[in-house]
């Protein structure tokens, strides 16, 4: 135990904490906690009334137990009792408990509010502050209802102490954020704005957060704050480094307040009043100048504080976007940071320059740094910095440098981190399209992109490429020739127009690879063949022969079979004229906005696009083993008693210090060699209900991709395990288990036990659906990474709807069947709030992804969606009807399912309710 610090008296608590730290295992810890909980419970229930001190101590113990991560379901009443104690420390612990463990129990809330009310009117400043803290910490609607009208009064009252004013301002801010409708500023507005002039810097610091938030929402009412903010800023900026005493931080006068003032000004356009504007420009120039001065201290705190102000000033300059002079100066100063030894500054400079690149005044100035930024993309060791560099290259790209930038991005893609590949691919595709001067460059770039990062090229990119190629006659020839040469991909549509001369040779060449192609490619090839017949009648006999053979006309794939049969018939029955009409070239697509740009734009504005938005979903999926067992570099971990600031590392060897020696081993950490546990990760699971391919899981080490296909009651799933590190995974093994063994049968072959750094291995699962099921199979993955055993369990996205066969039917059939499924348990219904876009196309895509047929003209209300399908299991077929009624106004859905088997209705309803 360390030397007991000032003013502390709760020895019982310290003993308890010490006990917990001495527990050798998790079990022992839980046992000790349960013992303590039983003790506290009996104390609270006992007949003997507890004195305030004991109550405080036990409440504090409960709080400690809760903060360790255990549930606490009692003690709230005792904590509330402490609130009305007139001893400060008892009150303080009571409030802390309430703040951390607030309970929505209405009875309790009333008591808490009463205690707060008493303290607010006590005129004792420390009590008032405690009460205000509690309101701000809880910040619930009930609190806002009770106190929102009282707090502004406290804030502006002439006799309120400064410390209370500070708390009142921030308390009000918190309430305004949760319940803006309850905080009515009207009569107080002007007095609140004038807090910017307050003598006490602390009051200004607190009040400005409130004023900034209010100004964002009601700019007109608060616009007088602009001139006050400018004059306050001007006074700070021009003050000597010691003028502000305790508000000077490492020789920088009031950095927090300066940043906040600059932030407040960003809520408004440049000041109209010439004098105010002149003064502000002067401030900004002074800030830029000061950033260039030699540092007054070598401490990183000094430079951080100074640069925090600089970056905030640059944000304001960019926000105004009207002072070319300042914009260019800002750009030059950021340019110096691009090669600074502090990683943090390089990161921020790259980020800030991204916005500068979008201003017409500074775009050219930003471009001069292209070499440095390219170098950053190649050499930065931190992926988040490289990401910023890629963003900046994207932002500074224009016709003059597009070829260089795209080439650099492409070469970076070859080694880029998995986490940012998809976004990089989109960016390259967009830049290539936007700045293409000659289309052969465009086609080359896209083909390169596909070669380098094919797995990350989303459908949007594919569609866009096809759209462009079809719309541009001049590209078609080049594209088809290039593609034909490499024979890497075949897109049937533009084939027709290019194949000149020696058609039979070309046909044979093409057909020789037919058996290597996937089903969709083969389907496209068949279409290309019929076009051959149209253009080159001399190939007709050969092609008919191909179509007629059993592997085509009797192909087990319905799509291929149908095409073969139909094309064969078409070629033998139709006259040349008819054939020519049927096979006429598709008309060009209407010009429209690029779907890939839309994808990139979706969340933020154009220009700066961050990695977060594109792989949020992936990133959310990433968690493996909590934080325990960190591998070799834990050796450098300083002991928990090391001086945090590191400035007094030669610690005095006092009695307390030696005593602490035995406690240095942190017994909170997992004791013993317990292998990291593997909680089931089902984050990725729900994203696959309506789709079959994508990234199931990704963390720092491993990425798992999935491709799957289903037919009847059978399915095949390809799992791709990618080692994202540069280190080999050893003893890599996977097992699949099915919770309901008799419902699903999943077979897999073992994988290679070694996965090299950067490599990807594949595993195939064969899945058979025996009968309907709810629980998904579990995939357990174990491997050693740098000596540490990694253990991970994922839910495989095999859901009952994968075995759907779509069923088309007429309106009358549908309603007849709907009525037949009228037993109450056959129907499952759920009303729920929309979690995603309610856009028609998105909904349709999801419903089709579900595997059912989407039926038109069935529901009398055209807004509603109706689907039908049959689930194929080994033993039976289960008919399912679905109706989805969106209510755009309320952002709600009603989902109704009727299936011939009640368990299926229920399961589908659960699964689907989380998809929309």
């Amino acid at each position, binding site marked *: 135990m360390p030397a007991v*610090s000032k003013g502390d008296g709760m020895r019982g608590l310290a003993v308890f904490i010490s006990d917990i730290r001495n527990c050798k295992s998790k079990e022992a810890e839980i046992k000790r906690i349960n013992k303590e909980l039983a003790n506290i419970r009996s104390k609270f229930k006992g007949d003997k009334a507890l004195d305030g001190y004991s109550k405080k101590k036990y409440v504090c113990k409960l709080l400690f137990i809760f*903060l360790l991560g255990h549930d606490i379901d009692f003690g709230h009443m005792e904590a509330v009792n402490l609130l009305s104690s007139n001893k400060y420390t008892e009150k303080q612990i009571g409030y802390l408990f309430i703040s951390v463990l607030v309970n929505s129990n209405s009875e309790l809330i009333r008591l808490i509010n009463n205690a707060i009310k008493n303290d607010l009117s006590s005129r004792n400043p420390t009590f008032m502050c405690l009460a205000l803290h509690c309101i701000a910490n809880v910040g619930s609607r009930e609190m806002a209802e009770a106190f929102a009208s009282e707090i502004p009064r406290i804030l502006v009252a002439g006799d309120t102490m400064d410390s209370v004013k500070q708390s009142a301002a921030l308390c009000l801010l918190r309430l305004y954020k949760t319940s803006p409708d309850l905080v009515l500023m009207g009569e107080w507005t002007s007095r609140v704005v004038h807090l910017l002039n307050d003598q006490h810097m602390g009051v200004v610091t607190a009040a400005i957060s409130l004023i900034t938030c209010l100004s964002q929402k009601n700019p007109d009412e608060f616009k007088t704050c602009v001139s006050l903010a400018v004059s306050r800023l001007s006074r700070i900026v021009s003050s000597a480094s010691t003028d502000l005493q305790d508000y000077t931080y490492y020789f920088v006068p009031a950095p927090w307040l300066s940043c906040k003032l600059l932030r407040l000004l960003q809520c408004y356009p440049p000041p109209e009043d010439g004098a105010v504007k002149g003064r502000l420009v002067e401030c900004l120039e002074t800030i830029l100048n000061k950033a260039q001065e030699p540092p007054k201290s070598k401490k990183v705190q000094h430079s951080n504080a100074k640069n925090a102000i600089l970056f905030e000033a640059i944000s304001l300059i960019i926000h105004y976007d009207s002072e070319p002079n300042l914009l260019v100066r800002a750009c030059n100063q950021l340019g110096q940071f691009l090669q600074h030894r502090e990683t943090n500054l390089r990161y921020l400079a790259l980020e800030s320059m991204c916005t500068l690149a979008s201003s017409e005044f500074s775009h050219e100035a930003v471009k001069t740094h292209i070499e440095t930024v390219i170098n950053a993309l190649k050499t930065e060791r931190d992926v988040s910095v490289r990401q910023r560099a890629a963003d900046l290259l994207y932002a500074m790209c224009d016709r003059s440098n597009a070829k260089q930038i795209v080439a650099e991005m492409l070469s970076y893609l070859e080694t880029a981190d998995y986490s940012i590949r998809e976004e990089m691919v989109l960016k390259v595709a967009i830049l290539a399209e936007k700045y293409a001067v000659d289309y052969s460059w465009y086609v080359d770039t896209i083909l390169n992109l596909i070669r380098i990062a094919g797995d990350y090229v989303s459908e949007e990119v594919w569609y866009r490429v096809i759209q462009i190629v079809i719309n541009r006659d001049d590209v078609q020839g080049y594209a088809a020739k290039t593609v034909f040469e490499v024979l890497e991909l075949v897109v049937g549509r533009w084939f027709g127009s290019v194949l000149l001369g020696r058609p039979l040779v070309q046909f044979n060449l093409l057909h020789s690879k037919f058996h290597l192609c996937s089903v969709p490619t083969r389907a496209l090839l068949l279409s290309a063949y019929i076009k051959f017949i149209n253009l080159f009648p001399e190939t007709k006999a050969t092609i008919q022969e191909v179509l007629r053979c059993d592997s085509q006309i009797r192909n087990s794939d319905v799509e291929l079979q149908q095409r073969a049969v139909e094309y064969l018939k078409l070629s033998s029955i139709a006259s040349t004229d008819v054939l020519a009409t049927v096979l006429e070239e598709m008309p060009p697509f209407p010009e429209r906005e690029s779907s890939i740009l839309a994808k990139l734009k979706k969340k933020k504005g154009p220009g700066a696009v961050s990695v977060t938005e594109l792989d949020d979903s992936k990133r959310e999926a990433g968690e493996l083993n909590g934080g325990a067992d*960190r591998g070799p570099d834990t050796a450098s971990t*300083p002991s928990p*008693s090391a001086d945090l600031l590191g400035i007094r590392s030669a610690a005095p060897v006092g009695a307390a210090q030696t005593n602490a020696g035995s406690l240095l081993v942190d017994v909170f950490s997992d004791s013993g060699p317990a292998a990291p546990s593997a909680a089931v990760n089902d984050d990725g699971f729900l994203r696959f209900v309506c789709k079959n391919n994508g990234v199931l899981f990704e963390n720092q080490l491993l990425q798992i991709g999935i491709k799957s296909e289903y037919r009847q009651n059978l399915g095949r799933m390809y799992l791709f395990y990618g080692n994202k590190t540069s280190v080999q995974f050893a003893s890599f093994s996977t097992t699949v288990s099915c919770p309901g063994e008799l419902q699903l049968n999943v077979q897999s072959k073992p994988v290679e036990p070694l996965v090299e750094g950067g490599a990807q291995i594949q595993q195939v699962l064969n899945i058979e659906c025996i009968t309907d099921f709810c629980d998904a199979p579990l995939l357990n993955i174990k491997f050693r990474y740098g000596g540490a055993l990694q253990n991970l369990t994922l839910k495989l996205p095999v859901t009952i709807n994968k075995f759907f066969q779509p069923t088309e039917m007429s309106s009358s059939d549908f309603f007849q069947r709907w009525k037949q499924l009228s037993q109450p348990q056959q129907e499952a219904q759920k009303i729920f709030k929309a979690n995603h876009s309610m856009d028609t196309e998105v909904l349709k895509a999801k419903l089709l992804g579900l595997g059912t047929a989407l039926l038109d003209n069935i529901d009398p209300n055209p807004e509603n969606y109706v689907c039908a399908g049959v689930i194929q299991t080994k033993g039976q077929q289960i008919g399912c009807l679905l109706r989805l009624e969106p209510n755009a106004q309320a952002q709600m859905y009603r989902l109704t399912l009727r299936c011939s088997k009640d368990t299926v209705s229920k399961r589908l309803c659960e699964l689907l309710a989380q998809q929309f």
Partner: protein
Amino acid sequence: MRFMLLFSRQGKLRLQKWYTATAERDKKKMVRELMQIVLARKPKMCSFLEWRDLKIVYKRYASLYFCCAIEEQDNELITLEVIHRFVELLDKYFGSVCELDIIFNFEKAYFILDEFLMGGEIQDTSKKSVLKAIEQADLLQEEDESPRSVLEEMGLA
């Protein structure tokens, strides 16, 4: 600021402060996820990262990581100094603060943080003002507590 976390190199959470209403389940999930990301980062990497729709600013002091989640428009560098000022306050109060001080006096750490930040915004940046508030409270505490016997303390009397 949305929340602040203090955790050890071994992934033990030492202090958590949430400035927006968050369900316990989500808190645990976010803490786990963030600790994993931050602990996996190497020493020379930058102190900022993008995570979900937030920016994470973190800094390591000896065995403890201080980690803040801020919003898109917030200033990263000044947040680093918020962390530093908080460490200085702890240091001044405990005198050469170490992880053990925060474990054994967690309630004090919360009180200090509350005096410094409220609702996720800075209440006062002056070291003196913040510590004055805490020390006043300590004085009040000493006044109203009479010494007790060890047995009584342990609930055995």
